[in-house]
């Protein structure tokens, strides 16, 4: 009997085998391949030239700096706009909160290239020629694209926040501003972190937004695209590896603040 129940346990776990195999083949293997390509040259000989080449060339370092610039500004703008929206929706006394939230999330389900096309037409009317303000247009485009990703996780954390804590704060004599600064804001950090996660990296890499808004400056994603078009897999792998390391460092730094379900914020509305 004992052996039978063991067998049963094993067989249920075996349901995960196809997905486990799939992950090994198409998630783990590609990572190994890019590490291999990043540290070899065209003849397959080990080299660190791709790495030194990246950090010694002013062009690529400039691209890295520009990507960080775009990403930092976009993330800040998204945060400054999304926090009040999420706060009002979660804490304010509106009647149809979930409907208003849905209105903010809905654009996410319209293809982003079509949304950027729409934005481009509006910006063209306002500015006349898009090439006058490439940085500003890119930030507007990315904010327009990624704002829902920032609203959702912050809204979710604020909604979960224990109201008793706020009452306690005011009972103990804190005014509204103090309660916000000392209770609400610190407790919403996990939501802010996952929002930053969802916005920062796409802003460093989504070069389609730049292309569509006629910004010809490269960001990290455009470098991968350029290496890909030139069949230079070694250079492209090194850029990918650098981006992966940035993600890893960010994950390790924010691990202790992170929300359990940070990754699922993309589908937060549907799964609720």
């Amino acid at each position, binding site marked *: 009997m004992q052996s039978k129940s063991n067998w*049963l*346990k094993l*067989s*249920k*776990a*075996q*349901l*995960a*085998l*196809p*997905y*486990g195999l*799939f992950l090994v083949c*198409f*998630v783990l293997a*590609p*990572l190994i*391949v*890019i590490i291999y390509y990043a540290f070899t040259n065209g003849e397959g000989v080990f080299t660190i030239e791709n790495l030194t080449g990246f950090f010694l060339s002013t062009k690529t370092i400039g691209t890295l700096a520009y990507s960080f610039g775009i990403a930092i500004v976009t993330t800040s703008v998204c945060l400054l706009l999304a926090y009040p*929206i999420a706060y*009002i929706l979660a804490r*304010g006394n509106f009647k149809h909160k979930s409907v*208003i939230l*849905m*209105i*903010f999330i*809905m*654009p996410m*389900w*319209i*293809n*982003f*290239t*079509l*949304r950027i*096309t*729409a934005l481009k*037409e*509006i910006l*063209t009317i306002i500015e006349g020629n898009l090439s006058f303000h490439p940085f500003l247009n890119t930030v507007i485009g990315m904010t327009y694209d990624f704002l829902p990703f920032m609203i959702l996780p912050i809204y979710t954390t604020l909604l979960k926040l224990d109201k008793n804590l706020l009452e306690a704060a005011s009972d103990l004599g804190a005014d509204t501003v103090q309660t916000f600064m000392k209770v609400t804001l610190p407790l919403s950090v996990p939501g802010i972190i996952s929002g930053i996660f969802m916005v920062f*990296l*796409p802003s460093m*890499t*989504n*070069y389609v937004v730049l*292309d*569509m808004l006629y910004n010809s400056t490269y960001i990290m*994603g455009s470098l*991968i*695209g350029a290496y890909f078009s030139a069949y230079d*897999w070694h250079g492209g792998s090194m850029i*990918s590896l650098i981006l992966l390391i940035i*993600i890893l460092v960010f*994950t390790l730094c924010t691990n202790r603040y992170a929300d359990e379900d940070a*990754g*699922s914020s*993309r*589908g937060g509305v*549907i*799964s609720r």
Partner: protein
Amino acid sequence: MKKTIQTVFILIMVTLLYLPIFVLAFYSFTDSANIGAIHGFSLHNYVTLFTKQELQDMIIGTLTLAFGSAIISTVLGMLGAVGVHYSKRFGKTFIGAMNQVPVVNAEVVTAFSLCILLIGVCGVDKSSYVSLLIGHVVLETPFVYLSVMPKLKQMDNSLYEAALDLGASPKTAIMRVVIPQIFPGIVSGFALAITLSLDDYFITSYTKPATFDTISTYVVNATKGSQTEIKTALWALSTIIFIVVVLLVIMMNVTGNKNARRAGEIEKKNA
């Protein structure tokens, strides 16, 4: 006073968010080729959209890919989640960690690395659609897994045991007891998979056959060209997608409310 400020702020944000979409929708019903120049009413954009062969192919291709890959991802992710739920620590840690990689990774890095593995190392022919399908499944399955997992955690494990005690085989118990319990997670995972596939640009453009286009790759190419007819037909497409999204959201809310009300009634009866 406070509420007025809040309302005004929300209104401004909603307006900014929807202004481009609405302006485009308005001009899609005119015969003008540029936003700003007012012309007469016309449906020619919609006629083009539904008669031009390449646009038809692109739309059907996008939808086929989205549904096909979403079905595969849903089955794979659901089985993965159920298996991991009952597995030992190693399986949990390994699959959990690997599942997170495509979620946090930049899409262009996922696309690039998958492309050099499949096309560079394994020699897969792009025109066979294999790399495209695998790419979309890689993108979608982790999110299916993440939607199903919480439902498994909420599930009462003794129900499965009870089914076994009452004589059900493990297969029957999983099909008739476990799956119905996690069904809402499976449905939302499937819906999420479809939206991810529809919205994707990078994975598609790195792994697709040269002759195949989805909405994303088509729109990006069209904005580089200068064909006015195509450009304005895309305004019509954007409008139709917007209307479909609105209808789906309304439908979802109506059925959601109905289910909630029914659940409430049942609870009342039982009480």
